[in-house]
């Protein structure tokens, strides 16, 4: 049985490599906000209040493009609705926590933290202090996100656009799913999701980001039925 501290540290170590993507993306996020003409305090506050990379950029782009507040809020909601799926997966491992702890830990659930902690949970179901892994991974991501968006706000236009730092985002997620390309069922689900996301890319409110996982999960259900 691992101690709380050991599991917490494992969580930190599990997401640490993703900082090679999170930090450049955070810098880009901060820089874009300033470039679009928003006040530094406002751009930074989003990293605390929303704490969701892609949705923060989309939100500011929509508002600066003259979209209504309703459209901006709806888009953020749609983009971040994938967290409902993460929550559904994690709930199994967080079941025993008190209601208040569940409320607090939820704030820290983001893509990479979910992915890495979920991998740990699957392999260590019997540990008692599982949620410390999520605290370690989510906490690390939170701190680095705050620092890097701040850096982007300060550096602003010094960040050369030609570097294409946003490309680090798909790369970090490739690193997360790449070992599953050994399994045919997962490959089918991944390709379904990927192709759907391109097909529905122009759907309103960036809804491709939740439409394609839903289609892919239906295909996963079909695959499961065929496997039996």
């Amino acid at each position, binding site marked *: 049985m691992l101690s709380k501290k050991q599991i917490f540290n494992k969580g930190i170590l599990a997401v640490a*490599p993703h900082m*090679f*993507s999170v930090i450049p993306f955070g810098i880009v996020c901060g820089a874009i906000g300033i470039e679009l003409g*928003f006040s530094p305090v*406002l751009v930074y506050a989003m990293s605390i*209040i*929303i*704490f*969701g990379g892609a949705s923060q950029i989309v*939100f500011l782009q929509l*508002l600066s493009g003259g979209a209504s*507040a309703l459209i*901006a*809020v709806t888009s953020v*909601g749609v983009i*971040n609705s*994938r*967290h*409902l*799926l*993460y*929550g559904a*997966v994690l709930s199994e491992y967080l079941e025993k926590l008190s209601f208040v702890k569940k*409320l607090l*830990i*939820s*704030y820290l659930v983001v*893509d990479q933290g979910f*992915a890495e902690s*979920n991998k740990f949970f699957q392999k260590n179901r019997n540990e008692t202090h599982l949620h410390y892994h999520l605290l370690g991974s989510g906490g690390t991501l939170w701190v680095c996100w705050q620092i890097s968006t701040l850096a982007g706000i300060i550096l602003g236009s010094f960040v050369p656009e030609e570097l*294409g730092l946003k*490309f*680090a*985002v*798909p*790369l*970090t*997620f*490739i*690193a*997360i*799913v*790449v*070992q599953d*390309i050994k399994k045919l*069922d*997962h490959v089918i689900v*991944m390709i*379904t*999701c990927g*192709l*759907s*996301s391109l097909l529905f890319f122009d759907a309103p409110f960036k809804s*491709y980001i939740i439409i*394609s996982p839903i289609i*892919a*999960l239906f295909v*996963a*259900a079909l695959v*499961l039925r065929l496997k039996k």
Partner: protein
Amino acid sequence: MTWFTIIIAGIITYFMRMTMVALVDRNLLGERVIAVLAYVPSAVFPAIIFPGIFINDYGTFIEMNDPKIFGAIVAILVGYFSRNVIATIISGLFSYWIIIFLL
């Protein structure tokens, strides 16, 4: 007004994170749903990966000889064989930079 909008967006995002963890009883989900949930990472992340590679900042499809495709292929190969997240990200970024800056 912008501040108010951000706070609403933040509250909605928080609810997305919290609902399934704190408000929904897992026993409400059937066994079949729980089995399907094992596919969530494979069903969600490609929706971030594919557009991040194949669609540019202006929302249009890239050419088939775009350096991002090369970078992604390098990252997949390096990631698969090295099992290392840092190597995956760095190899993808560097191979992309080599093409756009040196060739």
